[in-house]
């Protein structure tokens, strides 16, 4: 009988119920969209961050001390201390090796072209290496400099014949020298000189535009720094920092054993840095924090904004629902009075009304969820150029919110029911 009554209301009072469902759908769609974006936006921003370069730089300890002392990062591009090239493979042997997406070594030197001093940087472009573990892998700067625009020619590729003796020239320098793809550039370094073919001209939008990039071995030859490198850039997937990781970053030795374990075995930037230092002799690994942190702060603020919008949307729909339900209960006061008169208790009547409303709310919520998911995709494509993944958290959360909001919105209606006096509504005075 209970369900016949519920069915009766739902099917024979479609208009009113549709209004309530619609109000709930509005709130639910906004909540779904905001929550989906919120849960996915962290990943999206991380992905974007990763495409904008390495998260971690490894430099020799001395160089790090000097730059810290004088707070002049990279004031001199010509290094005075070095890391060992043969330790590079160790990067892929640390605990979090699988989180290391890519890495590349750098060495820089000054060369002379027609009486002009030019910085020349040696690195890996597409370097194939065999690890002591037997693993094979390709690493290099190509994917870590994805924003470089190789205006003419192409990226160098160590695996190609002849590329070992070719160079890439920054666009500004190429203009000054008047060289193009295929031309030869004569230069002289500390140890050696020669004439090298230009494989490509790139535009980086920074200092690199007036520099020369070449394979690591070639630059080491020219500068006489065989087997030495001045820094390593590592691109890693990391877990967002929290209290523990910040504490550990200051001084891991102050952690308790359990904390240390947790920290070491979590892919925090600080624990990856720490592990890199362990495998590269006399090195300091640092997160490129400035970018990461300000992005993080913006992320936090964006998420806070979304939470606020969601809360406001939910309060709005709770008020809307509350008005609709109260009005509907007032309209049905004779019916409710009658139920009381024939012996229905307050709880029974409240249960009946709440069941009706929850069913309508869940229907509305389901519609709103679908709409909100679509809305999230629109946001995803217009802001991140990617679809928004549906987090498994969102569904139960939206269901919970819909129920809570509906119940909260039903409070005034239920109070009306409790106060309603059957004698007053039944004898039309």
């Amino acid at each position, binding site marked *: *009988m*209970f369900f*016949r*009554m519920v069915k*009766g*209301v739902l*099917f*024979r*009072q479609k208009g009113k119920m549709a209004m309530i469902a619609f109000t709930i759908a509005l709130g639910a769609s906004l909540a779904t969209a905001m929550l989906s974006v919120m849960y996915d936006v962290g990943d999206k921003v991380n992905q974007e961050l990763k495409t904008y370069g390495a998260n971690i730089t490894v430099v020799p300890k001395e160089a790090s001390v000097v730059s810290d002392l004088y707070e002049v990062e990279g004031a001199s591009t010509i290094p005075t201390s070095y890391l060992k090239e043969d330790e590079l493979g160790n990067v892929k042997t640390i605990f979090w090796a699988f989180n290391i997406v890519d890495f590349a070594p750098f060495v820089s030197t000054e060369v002379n072209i027609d009486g002009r001093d030019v910085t020349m940087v040696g690195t890996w472009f597409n370097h194939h290496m065999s690890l002591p573990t037997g693993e094979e892998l390709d690493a290099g700067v190509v994917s870590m400099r994805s924003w470089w625009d190789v205006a003419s020619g192409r990226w160098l590729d160590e695996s190609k014949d002849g590329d070992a003796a070719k160079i890439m020239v920054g666009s500004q320098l190429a203009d000054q020298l008047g060289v193009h793809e295929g031309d030869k550039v004569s230069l002289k370094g500390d140890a050696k000189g020669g004439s090298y073919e230009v494989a490509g001209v790139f535009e980086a939008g920074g200092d690199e535009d007036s520099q020369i990039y070449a394979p690591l071995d070639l630059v080491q030859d020219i500068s006489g720094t065989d087997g030495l490198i001045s820094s390593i850039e590592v691109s890693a997937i990391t877990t967002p920092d929290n209290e523990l990781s910040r504490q550990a970053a200051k001084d891991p030795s102050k952690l308790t054993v359990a904390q240390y374990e947790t920290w070491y075995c979590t892919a925090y930037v600080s624990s990856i840095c720490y592990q890199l230092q362990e495998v590269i002799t006399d090195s300091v690994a640092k997160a490129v924090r400035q970018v990461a942190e300000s992005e993080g702060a913006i992320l936090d603020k964006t998420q806070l904004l979304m939470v606020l919008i969601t809360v406001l949307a939910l309060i709005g729909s709770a008020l809307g629902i509350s008005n609709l339900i109260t009005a509907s209960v007032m309209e049905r006061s*004779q*019916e409710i*009075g*009658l*139920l*009381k*008169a*024939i*012996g*229905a*208790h307050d709880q*029974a009547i409240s249960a009946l009304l709440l069941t009706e409303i929850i069913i309508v709310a869940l229907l509305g919520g389901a519609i709103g969820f679908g709409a909100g998911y679509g809305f999230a995709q629109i946001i995803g494509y217009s802001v991140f150029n990617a679809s928004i993944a549906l987090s498994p958290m969102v569904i139960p959360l939206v269901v919970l919110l819909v129920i809570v909001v509906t119940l909260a919105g039903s409070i005034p209606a239920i109070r009306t029911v409790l106060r309603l*006096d*059957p*004698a007053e509504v*039944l*004898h*039309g*005075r």
Partner: protein
Amino acid sequence: MALLELKNVYKIYGDLHALDDVNLTVDEGEWVAIMGPSGSGKSTLMNIIGCMDKPTRGQVLLDGKDIANESSRGLTDIRRDKIGLIFQQFHLINYLTALENVMVAQYYHSMPDEKEAMEALKRVGLGDRAKHLPSQLSGGEQQRVCVARALINHPELILADEPTGNLDETNEKIVLDLFRQLHDEGTTLIVVTHDAEVGASAQRVITLEYGKVTSSHGDTSFGKAARKDVV
């Protein structure tokens, strides 16, 4: 035995005495009509007898139990178990069929029983209208559904406030016939009415004026008739 006994009952709103020292005894199986001008306190009296309201002062004994001491939950239970209500405006639930409207009373009383509800509808001559919504029924038909709903749980007491107030003569006759049947079966009936004919059908007519019982005519001895099998 007296099913209902009112002793010195007052209902006072502000300084208006809607009921003013009412004394009344209704025996089991009796059919009583309550008449009186508008505003004389008839509905007020019915609400109190029907356990939908409490007196300001005085005793209302139903089956020897004073309802003045009951909680509102207790009153609800008494209404459910002992009283059948019939209204001038029918008060059917508009989204339920005639049959379902009868079953609602069963549902809150004990268990809905579709067969029994159907029997009750047949009894009031609406067997072929069971699946109709109230809006698809005439006023007379709606009032008969209301009667079926009132009698479905075999109440000790049926209260009707102006049951024929919205009906034409033909339907008034049908409803009166139903009352007569119920009375013959031993059901106690209290009917508020303006209609002289409805009043005349009762065994006893009580007249209210300004909240006071001013007269009581009729054959009270007949009311001692024992209740026979009901419905």
